[in-house]
């Protein structure tokens, strides 16, 4: 019962951000690069949430930011999930030296500072939406791979895997039929948590100027830009901060709910 | 003083369901009582309730007098002084009952030091005595739990329980995880030690044949309630309750084939 409630709350929060991002695709109060609003206009009047120090409409920036946050979040989870789960499955099935080599490689990826990785990616490509997705996805893949590896190894010790093998089931089918369904719930929850972390990472990268450049208004960059004027125009810092919290909390609540829904032993039996 | 007096004990889960219901039994000095039941009968929970060690979310109701101390509703801090002294437990799985990162000798020294206040050479000698008592070689003191066999681990666990010189020894399926030949050795050891010290024994098991070898009296549990109690011989020979009868019949039926081939 409690699980259902938090899951619903999480869905509402995430849906709200999704809606804002969707609307931003078809309608925005102002053009994102329109600087005619006057510097640091207070909330109310023509500009609902006021303007920033360059005279851009804050609501517009926030709406575009929602789109960026979700794109980077989902994109990097796809990149990190794909690389991570594949590498984790390999390592999970590997024995002896291959497992050792893969585990060592994963440790290096995990130990590698995300910021340094991001700087390298930006240096190699350029600061763009794609670079942010790639950098965050790569950094995430190590953690995902290591989790996948442990989960796979655990499942492989179960008798139902042996039973499946003695039923003549081939390894690829054992993976599809038994391994993936059994690791999926834990993995899904972790990927959802990673999505929250990715949104935060994007904000951090943008705050440091390593994120997607304008006109991609990122919440992280909005925070950075509002830093100098936080005392005179607090809305500029508070609004993107609140949205960031809403999205990350929402995603985490959904992650919790997913775990309960995906597990038949936790579902109420009819 | 009666070592253990349980009256109207219930163990309640957070959702209000009773996992043990209105259980009463007592243990005289030197007496051996068997608590027998199948999985889910509440026999292990009873042992934990007696020690005041119920897992979070479960509460005990009724009365458990352990060596004169009320174990139900007393603050945990006070119970620490009773545990070990009044009663000690030997659990089913000796690997999880011992700290895997501590040598057996050090683990054994801890309760001896606490109970008898020994230090240095005297403490080391006491540890060696305790090991000898459970027929473990001296070198076991320097070994980690994973370096010795399952039977040796259970002997070490018994030595730790006895180190506190408790009035009551609670043995919760102490031989279920062991091989048959090791089981009979450990049972014989336990039997001798309990008799030698005049300790009371609460022996928890699902195995009627084991309990019939160890305990004078039995309490039969089913779904948290006592269905029958009495002298072991009477219960096994003439079970009155239908459930007890099905237990006894199953045990005889299983054993029947073996008795036929190897009387």
């Amino acid at each position, binding site marked *: 019962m409690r699980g259902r409630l938090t899951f619903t709350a999480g869905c509402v929060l995430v849906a709200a951000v999704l809606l804002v991002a969707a609307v931003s695709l078809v309608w925005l109060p102002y053009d994102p690069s329109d600087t005619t609003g006057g510097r640091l206009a207070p909330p109310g009047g023509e500009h609902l949430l006021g303007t920033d120090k360059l005279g851009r409409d804050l609501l517009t920036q926030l709406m575009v930011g929602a789109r960026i946050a979700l794109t980077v979040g989902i994109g990097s989870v796809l990149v990190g999930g794909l690389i991570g789960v594949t590498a984790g499955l390999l390592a999970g099935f590997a024995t002896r030296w291959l497992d050792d080599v893969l585990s060592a490689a994963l440790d290096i990826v995990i130990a590698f500072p995300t910021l340094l990785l991001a700087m390298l990616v930006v240096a190699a490509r350029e600061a763009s939406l794609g670079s942010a997705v790639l950098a965050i996805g790569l950094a995430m893949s190590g953690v995902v791979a290591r989790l996948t590896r442990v989960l796979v190894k655990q499942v492989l010790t179960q*008798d139902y895997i042996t*039973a499946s093998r003695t039923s003549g089931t*081939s390894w690829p089918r054992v993976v599809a*039929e038994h391994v993936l369904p059994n690791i999926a719930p834990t993995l899904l929850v972790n990927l959802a948590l990673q999505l929250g972390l990715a949104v935060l990472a994007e904000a951090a990268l943008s705050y440091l100027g390593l994120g997607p450049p304008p006109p991609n208004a990122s919440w992280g960059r909005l925070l950075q830009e509002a830093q100098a004027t936080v005392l005179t125009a607090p809305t500029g810092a508070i609004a993107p901060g609140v949205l960031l919290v809403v999205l990350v909390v929402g995603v985490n609540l959904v992650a919790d709910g997913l775990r309960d829904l995906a597990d038949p032993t936790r579902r109420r039996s009819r | 003083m009666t070592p253990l007096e349980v009256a109207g004990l219930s163990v309640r889960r957070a959702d209000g369901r009773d996992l043990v219901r209105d259980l009463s039994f007592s243990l005289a000095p030197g007496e051996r009582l068997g608590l027998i039941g199948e999985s889910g009968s509440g026999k292990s929970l009873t042992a934990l309730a007696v020690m005041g060690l119920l897992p979070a979310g479960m509460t005990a109701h009724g009365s458990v007098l352990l060596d004169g101390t009320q174990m139900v509703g007393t603050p945990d801090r006070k119970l620490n002084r009773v545990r070990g002294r009044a009663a000690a437990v030997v659990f089913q799985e000796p690997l999880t009952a011992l700290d895997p990162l501590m040598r057996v000798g050090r683990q054994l020294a801890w309760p001896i030091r606490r109970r008898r206040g020994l230090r240095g050479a005297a403490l080391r000698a006491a540890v060696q005595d305790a090991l000898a008592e459970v027929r473990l070689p001296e070198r076991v003191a320097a070994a980690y739990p994973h370096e010795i066999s399952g039977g040796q681990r259970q002997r070490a666990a018994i030595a730790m329980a006895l180190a506190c010189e408790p009035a009551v020894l609670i043995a919760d399926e102490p031989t279920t995880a062991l091989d*048959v030949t090791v089981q009979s050795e450990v049972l014989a050891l336990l039997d001798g030690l309990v008799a030698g010290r005049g300790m009371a024994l609460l022996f928890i098991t699902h*195995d009627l044949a084991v309990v*019939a*070898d160890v305990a004078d009296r039995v309490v039969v549990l089913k779904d948290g309630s006592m269905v029958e109690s009495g002298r072991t011989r009477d219960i096994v020979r003439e079970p009155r309750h239908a459930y007890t009868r099905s*237990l006894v019949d199953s045990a005889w039926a299983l054993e029947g084939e073996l008795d036929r081939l190897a009387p």
Partner: protein
Amino acid sequence: MTRAGAGGRAPSAGPTSGAPPAVLAAHEVGFAYRGGRPVLEDVSVTVTAGRGLALVGESGAGKTTLLRLLLGLDRPTSGRVLFDGAAVAPGDRAFRRAVQPVFQDPYSSLDPRRRVGRIVSEPLRSLGLLAPGSRAERRDEAGRRVAEALASVGLPPDAARRYPHEFSGGQRQRIAIARAVVSRPRVLLADEPVSALDVTTRIRVVELLGRLAESHGLTVVVVSHDLSVVAALCADTAIIERGRVVEQGPTADVLGSPAHPYTRKLLESVPRLSRAARLR
């Protein structure tokens, strides 16, 4: 079948002419993990059609390893495993179909995320045992055979729609047995099939295995330390100690007049109501 007692005559595994055929046999097999000391040495056992075989020994004696070799899950480092007189080839569908396992722990042997129907029908699908036809026809046939298998272990057909966690330990072991018999195998290899169950459930599962052996023409190979189960189910017994067969032959002989000291010790150690101290 020869009887190798304490004297140490090597038991022969090959079928002699006129004797009932050996379905499955280990011939002088040895097994060791890489760099480890041998788990099995020079072990020969024969599963004769219609005569159950018990593999008895302590934990670590190598009986589960022997079972894995007989199941074709591992390959012996020396010696051969023979199925119908020929070496077992990996991926041999006739062998897979004919030799099926039942495991000790009914909680680990059923995939918690699959409905019982899908679990029980897996051998049918994986071994291609369903008649060719449309998807719906094959699903109907699978459903029919699953219901049949469930009925043979005493479970209602609607069990197929439920998940393993909705069943008790004894019922789960019945489901595992249903999966093992759905392909109509000739040999059932059971690793401590009842040791995780309660006494009252235990006797019913032992009875079920005995009944299935008779009605389905199954030969049951049981790994067990429980001599009562052995006596109830198996006509032949091999006693294994530290990776070697120390005694084997008809169960009545091995348990009735044990020749090896280890067998005697084992028999004396079994807790028995008929010998219980407090009943005298």
